[in-house]
C-alpha cells in the first residue's frame, strides 16, 4: 500500500531534521515502540508492540536511513519481523521545506505486510497503516512543537509559551 501526506511543523527545518534522527524522539513517536537504539549512521534497532485486527505481536527490526540530504530530505526504510504474526516492511521518503511558520514535512510511505498479518488483516491493513502514520507524525509534531492542546502540557504553560519537549531539550 502507498500513502502520502504533508504536515506543517512550527520549527525550523534544522530542528525537524535533528529530531527525526534522534532515537529518543523516534521511540516516543513510533506508536507501540518499546525500544529504539542506534544512530543515523548505523541504523536503528527497534522493538514495536502492535495489534492489527486480531493479530497482536512484538515486531523486532531494523530501520536504516539513507539518501540523507541535510536538512532537506532523507529515506527511512525498515523491516519488522513478528514471528508467527508475519512481517511488515516499508519505507518513507521524507522531504522538508522551509515555510513562514517553520517546516513543511512531506512524506511518501510504501508498506508491505506478509504472513498472518496479510492473511487476517488485509481488509484493515490500509486503514491501520494510515492510522500508524498519522499517529507517528502527530506525535512527532507534538514532540517538536508542543502539544496542540495546551492543557495536555502544563509545563509548557508554566513556561509561558508552548514548547515541545524536543525543542526544550535542544534550546536548554
Amino acid at each position, binding site marked *: 500500500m502507498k500513502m502520502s501526506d504533508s504536515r506543517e511543523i512550527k520549527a525550523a527545518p534544522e530542528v525537524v531534521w535533528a529530531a527525526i534522527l534522534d532515537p529518543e524522539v523516534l521511540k516516543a513517536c513510533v506508536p507501540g515502540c518499546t525500544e529504539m537504539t542506534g544512530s543515523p549512521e548505523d541504523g536503528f534497532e527497534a522493538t514495536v508492540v502492535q495489534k492489527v485486527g486480531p493479530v497482536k505481536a512484538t515486531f523486532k527490526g531494523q530501520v536504516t536511513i539513507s539518501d540523507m540530504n541535510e536538512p532537506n530530505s532523507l529515506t527511512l526504510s525498515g523491516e519488522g519481523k513478528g514471528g*508467527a504474526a508475519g512481517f511488515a516492511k516499508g519505507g518513507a521518503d521524507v522531504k522538508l521545506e522551509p515555510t513562514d511558520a517553520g517546516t513543511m514535512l512531506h512524506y511518501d510511505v510504501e508498506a508491505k505486510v506478509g504472513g498472518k498479518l496479510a*492473511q*487476517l488483516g*488485509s481488509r484493515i491493513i490500509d486503514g491501520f497503516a494510515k492510522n500508524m502514520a498519522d499517529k507517528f507524525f502527530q506525535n512527532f509534531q507534538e514532540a517538536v512543537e508542543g502539544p496542540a492542546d495546551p492543557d495536555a502540557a502544563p509545563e509548557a504553560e508554566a513556561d509561558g509559551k508552548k514548547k515541545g519537549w524536543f525543542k526544550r531539550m535542544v534550546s536548554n
Partner: protein
Amino acid sequence: MPKDNGIGASTKRREDVRFLTGHGKYTDDINVLHQTYVHFLRSDVAHGKITSIDTAEAAKMPGVVRIFTGADFEGVGGLPCGWQVTDRHGEPMKEPPHPVLAQGKVRHVGEPIAAVVADTLAEARDAAEAIMVEIEDLPAAVDMKAALKDGAPKVHDELSDNLCYDWGFVEENKGAVEEAIKNAAHVTTLELVNNRLVANPMEPRVALGDYNRSDDMSTLYTTSQNPHVIRLLMGAFVLGIPEHKLRVVAPDVGGGFGTKIFHYAEEAFCTFAARQIKRPVKWTSTRSEAFMSDAHGRDHVTKIELALDKDNNFTAIRTETYANMGAYLSTFAPSVPTWLHGTLMAGNYKTPNIYVNVKAVFTNTVPVDAYRGAGRPEATFQLERVIDKAARELGVDPIALRKQNFITEFPYATPVAVEYDTGDYMATMAKLEEIADVKGFAARRAESEKNGKLRGLGINCYIEACGIAPSNLVGQLGARAGLYESATVRVNATGTISVMTGSHSHGQGHETAFPQVVAEMLGIDESMIDIVHGDTANTPMGMGTYGSRSIAVGGSAMVRATEKIINKAKKIAAHLMEASEADIELKDGAFSVAGTDKSVAWGDVTLAAYVPHNYPLEDIEPGLEETAFYDPSNFTYPSGAYCCEVEVDPETGKVTVERFAAADDFGNIINPMIVSGQVHGGIAQGIGQALLENCAYDENGQLLSASYMDYAMPRADDVPFYQVDHSCQTPCTHNPLGVKGCGEAGAIGSPPAVINAVVDALQSGGHKVTHIDMPATPSRVWAAMQG
C-alpha cells in the same frame, strides 16, 4: 408405495446417528501413548532463497524432542505427481521436485520450512518462534499471464520458464476449427475467470504417524479420501516403506470435496518423523494453515469462441485457457485442466469442431488441484456462459438455442475423444421448465420490479464424465495409477455381511447406500449388512472416492463380489436341497428349487458354509467370502438442466438467489434422499463460487483471504429452497447398476446458471452488461451497473 429396503428406498443415513450426536471418530480423536505434536514453521513470503536456518536456540526450549528441516529429508523422495500430461509438441510436462520440507528456496506462502516436534503443541509452537530463518526475498510470479512473460521471476530455477505444459486437444482438430470459425455466420467471444477457491471441508486435515519397533510397522492415521493411494504414493515414492510394513487409516472424515485426495507433505512428515524419533507424531491443521496448505481449486483464465452458422447451429468451439498449478504439482493437478476439462468441452451439444488449448502455469501460490467437479465446472461455466451470450447477441431464446443444438442420438462420439453412452437432454430440459415454472417467470419479474428489484432467470445444462475411470484409457492419457475399485463381501455364519470396500465415505452416505445394493441382490434386510472402509489393513486395494465414482465403480465391484457370493451360495443350497444348481433361485432371502415348494433360508446356507457338516467339500471350499475388482469400460455421463432466478438490488448491487431448480439424470438411483442431499450440497457450493467465494493473492504473492473474515462461505440464508428432481433416468449402459454418480453435479451445474441469471437481471434493467466474473459480489455488480 415407496420402497423401504433395497435399491430405490430413501433409507435414512445410518451414519448420521453418530455424526449428529458427536460420536463420530475422526482422525483428531485418535491419540496414541507417548504421542508428540508437530508444529510447522511456514514461509510468510511467497518466494525467496533460504540463506540460513538456525534451530540451536529453539532446540533447547522446553519439551522439544527434535527439529527437522529440509536437510533431514535429503535422500528422501519428494511428493510425487500421479498424472503426466504430454504437451502439444509431444513433450512431457515439466515436473519439478516437490520437497516435504523446503529445500533451499520457498515457493509459496505456507510452504513448510521446519518442523518442531515437542511433547506438547504449545511447546512446539513456542520453539518454532525461536527458529531463526533468513530468507532473501525474490520477486514473486503471481499473475499467470505475467508469469509467462520473458524475464518473469522463475518459480523453479532449473526450468526454462514457468510453463508446465502447453496442451492442445485435439491437436488434429485445430485446422478444421479455425476454418469453421472463419466461415461462421456469427462468432461469440467471451473472456472470463474461473475464480480460485478453497475447499474448506468442515474438518481440517490431520495426520498422526506411529511406528512400532517390535514389528517395524508404520501406521498413518490421516484425513484422506483414498487411504490405499496414500499408502502407495508415500510408501513407494516418498519414504521407501514396503506396503506390508505400512498401514494407512482414514477413519471418519469430515468432508473432502477433492482436497483430501492428494498426498500431502504433512502426512509424509508425520510418518517419517515417527520412525526417526520412535514416538508417534501428530499434526492437526488450524483453519489458517488449511487456507495456505490445502490444495486450492479452479483458478482458470479463459477465452472461448463459439461459432454458429446462419441457422444458429453450433459449428465450432475454440478455447484458450491459462490454468494455475501453483508452486508445485499436487497429486492430480495436471489432469484437472486437461483430461477432466478438455474432454467435456462438447457439453450437451453436437458441435462438430472443437479445439481446446490449455497452458498450465507455475506461480508462487499454493498448489491447485481437484475441487468438487474438477475441470468439469470450468468447462461447463465457459461453455454455458458463451452460449448464453450468443443467444443474447442473436436475440434468440437461450433455452431454444440450447435445445436446437442438443445431442439427441446415443451413443454419441464427441470431437473431444469421449463417447456418451446415454442421455436425454430434451427430457431434463422439459422437466426443468416444469419444476422451475419458467412460464411463470414473467409474472415474478413484474412483481420484483414493482418492489424496485431487477429479476433474472439463468439456464444451464451440463454433462459430466464421472465414474472415474477406465484404467487402460487413463493409462494412455498419462495416469500413473489404475482407477478400478474393489470390494470384499464377507458373509458371516449367521448370514450377516461385512462389505470391505476400497471406496471411502467422507459424508456421502456409503454406509447406508451400499448395503441397499447388497440387500436388494440377496433379498435380505439392509440392517444385516455393514460397510467397512478407510483402513488399508482390512480393505482390499482400492482407489478411493472422488470423481463421483463410488457407486458407479465401487458399487459395481460390490455387485460383482455379491454375484460370486450368490453363485457359491446356490451351489451350497443345491447340495442342501439335493437339487441341481441350475434349478436354484434366490428370492426374498431364500433359495428355492424352481417349480417346487422346496426352499432353504439364506441363514441356513451361510451356516452350512461355516459349519460344513453337510457340505460338498469335494466340490467347493467352505466359507462364504468373495472379492471382486471392477474396472469400468467407459466414464459415466450424468447430465442435467439447472435454472436459477435471482433478484438484484439496483441500489446496492446485492444479488439474492430467489429460486433454484435442478433436473438431473443420474441413471438409476440407489437412495433418492441421499442423491437429493448431494445435489443440495453441490448447489450450495456452486452458489458460493458464483456469488461469494474468492481466494485472493496480492501482487507479492501474499495470501489475503485466509480466514472466514475474508473468505466468504455460503451460509443458510444465502441459498433458497431448491426444487430438485431426478426422475429423468437413462441408465448407464456399461455398469451393472446402470448408475452414473451424483456427487459433483450440483457444483458443476450451478455457477453458470447463477451468472446467467445475474446478467439477465442486469440487462432487464437496461444495463449493457454481457459478463460478470465470479464471485458476483455487490461491489462488482454495482460497478458493472455503473458501466
